[in-house]
C-alpha cells in the first residue's frame, strides 16, 4: 500500500514538475527547426519563478471570482493525474474516482472557470478572448465526446487502464482501423486544445489572441498559477495521447521506484517524439482565419465517426 501511495504522489509530482520542461522542449524545437538558437529548455521554470516573485496587481472591478479561478484551475488540473496512467499501468488507489470522461470534464471545468474570470473584470479583451475560446470549445467538444464513445466501444470500458491493457495485449486491435482513426482524431484535438497552429499561435497582438486574451488582466503569482495550469493541461493531454492511445508501452507494472524512474524516462522519450511531430505540423502550416477553424475540426469529427463506424456497433 505504501508503494501505491508513493507511486500516486510520484505521478502528481511528475506532472507538476515536468510540465514546464515539455513546454520548453516544444519552444526550443520550434526554433531549432527554423535554424535559430531558441530559448533554453529550462526557460519556463525561470518564467514561473519570475512571476511568483512579482507583486500582485488586481483590477478594481474584479470580484472574488478573479482570486478563486487560478486556484480552482490548478486544483482541477492536479486532480486529473490521479485518474490516468502516468507512470504505472495498473490502477492506483483513488484512480477509480473518475474515468476518461471524468478527466475530460474536469479539464473543461478549468477552462470554463477561466472564461468566467475573463468576463469578470469587464475588460474588452477579456470578452473577446472568452467568446472566441467558447466558440472553439463548441467546435471541439463533440469530437471529444465522440472520441470517448469510440474508445468505449473499442474497449468496452471507459477506464484508461483497460484501454491501455487492451492495446498492449492485442496487436490486431492496435493496428485496426478504429484505433488508428482514434489516434488521428485525438491528434487534431490535441492541436486544438494546446493552441497549436493551425488554430492559434502565441502572439502579442491582442486582437489576434484567442485564449491568451482571457488572462490579460492577471499579473504576478495568479498569472503564474494560470500559466502553470495550462502547461499541466498540455502535459496531461499528451499523457492521455501517448500512454493510453498511441504508445501504451513503457509503463511501470509493479510500482517499484526503479520502475517509476524508468517510466519517467519512457514518458520523456515518448513526449519528445510527439513534441517533434507537433512541431513539424506547426511549422508546415500557416494560421487559419477564424472562420476556417471548422475545417480541421470537421476533419477531426469525421475521423471520430469513421472510428466508430469501423468498430461495428
Amino acid at each position: 500500500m505504501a508503494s501505491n501511495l508513493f507511486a500516486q504522489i510520484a505521478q502528481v509530482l511528475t506532472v507538476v514538475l515536468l510540465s514546464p520542461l515539455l513546454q520548453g522542449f516544444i519552444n526550443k524545437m520550434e526554433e531549432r527547426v527554423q535554424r535559430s538558437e531558441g530559448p533554453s529548455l529550462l526557460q519556463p521554470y525561470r518564467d514561473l519563478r519570475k512571476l511568483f516573485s512579482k507583486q500582485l496587481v488586481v483590477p478594481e472591478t474584479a470580484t472574488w471570482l478573479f482570486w478563486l479561478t487560478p486556484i480552482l484551475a490548478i486544483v482541477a488540473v492536479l486532480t486529473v493525474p490521479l485518474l490516468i496512467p502516468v507512470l504505472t499501468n495498473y490502477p492506483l488507489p483513488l484512480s477509480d474516482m473518475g474515468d476518461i470522461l471524468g478527466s475530460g470534464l474536469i479539464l473543461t471545468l478549468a477552462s470554463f472557470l477561466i472564461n468566467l474570470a475573463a468576463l469578470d473584470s469587464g475588460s474588452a479583451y477579456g470578452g473577446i478572448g472568452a467568446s472566441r475560446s467558447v466558440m472553439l470549445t463548441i467546435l471541439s467538444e463533440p469530437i471529444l465526446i465522440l472520441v470517448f464513445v469510440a474508445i468505449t466501444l473499442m474497449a468496452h470500458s471507459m477506464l484508461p487502464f483497460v484501454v491501455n491493457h487492451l492495446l498492449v495485449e492485442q496487436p490486431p486491435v492496435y493496428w485496426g482501423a478504429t484505433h488508428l482513426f482514434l489516434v488521428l482524431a485525438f491528434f487534431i484535438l490535441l492541436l486544438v486544445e494546446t493552441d497549436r497552429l493551425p488554430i492559434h499561435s502565441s502572439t502579442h497582438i491582442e486582437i489576434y489572441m484567442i485564449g491568451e486574451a482571457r488572462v490579460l488582466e492577471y499579473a504576478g503569482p495568479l498569472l503564474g498559477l494560470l500559466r502553470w495550469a495550462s502547461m499541466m493541461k498540455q502535459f496531461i493531454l499528451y499523457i492521455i495521447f501517448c500512454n493510453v492511445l498511441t504508445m501504451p508501452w513503457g509503463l511501470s507494472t509493479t510500482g517499484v521506484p526503479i520502475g517509476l524512474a524508468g517510466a519517467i524516462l519512457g514518458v520523456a522519450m515518448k513526449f519528445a517524439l510527439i513534441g517533434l511531430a507537433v512541431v513539424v505540423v506547426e511549422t508546415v502550416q500557416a494560421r487559419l482565419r477564424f472562420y476556417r477553424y471548422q475545417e480541421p475540426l470537421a476533419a477531426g469529427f469525421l475521423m471520430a465517426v469513421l472510428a466508430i463506424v469501423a468498430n461495428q456497433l
Partner: protein
Amino acid sequence: MEFTHLGAMAEALFSLLTVGSLMLAFVMLGSRWLKDYMYAFAAQSWLIAALSACVAYYGDFHELYGVALLTAVFRGVLLPYMILHILRRLKVRRELLGYMRPSSSLVFGAFLVILALGVAVHITGALGLAGSNVIVLALTVMLSMKLIGFLMLIVRHEAVSQILGLLVLENGIFLGSQILVPGMPMMIELVILFDLLVAVACFGVLVRYLMVHVGSTSSRHMKRLTG
C-alpha cells in the same frame, strides 16, 4: 459466404484498407484543389488494388491477383494521368463557391456514412450475417462511397470534380464487389475496367469541347437549357 470467419489480423487488415479508402473519399470531399482530388483518387485506387490482393490471398482466388495488378495500373496510374492531362488544359485550379463549403460537406458526409451503416446492419441482420465484421464493413463502405460520390456530384460545380465523383462511385462498387462477390467472372470485371477507361477518354474530349464552345467548365455557366 467467404469471409465470415477470418483471423483477427486479417480482419484488421481488411478493415484498415476499406476504411482507408473511405477516408480518402473524404479527403476528396474536403479539399478545394483539383489536383488534390486526383491524388486522393489515385491513392484510393491503390488501396483497393491492395485489397484485391488481400482477398486473393486469404480466399484463394488466384485470378484476383491479376485483377489487383490491372486495377493498380489502370485505375491507379492511367486514369489519374488522363485526368491530369485534362487538368493541365483547364484554367481553373480549384473550386471556389461551391454549393456547400468543404467543412460542411465533410460533416454531411459523416452523416451519410452513419446512414450507410444503418442500412448495412439492417441487410446483414436480415441475412443472418450480423456477426461478420468484414461483410458489414464492406457493405457500409460501398454504400457510403456511393453516397459520397453523389454528394460530390451535387455540391461541386467543376467538370473535373464531377468526373472524379463518378469515378468514386465506380470505385465504391468495385471495392464492394471485391469483398462480397470475389468469384464474379473475371471477364466482366475486366470489361468494366476498360469501359471506364473509354468513358474517361470521352469525358476528356467533352471537357475540351466545353472549354472551346461554352467557355467554361463550370456548371454554373451551363444554364442555357431550362424548362
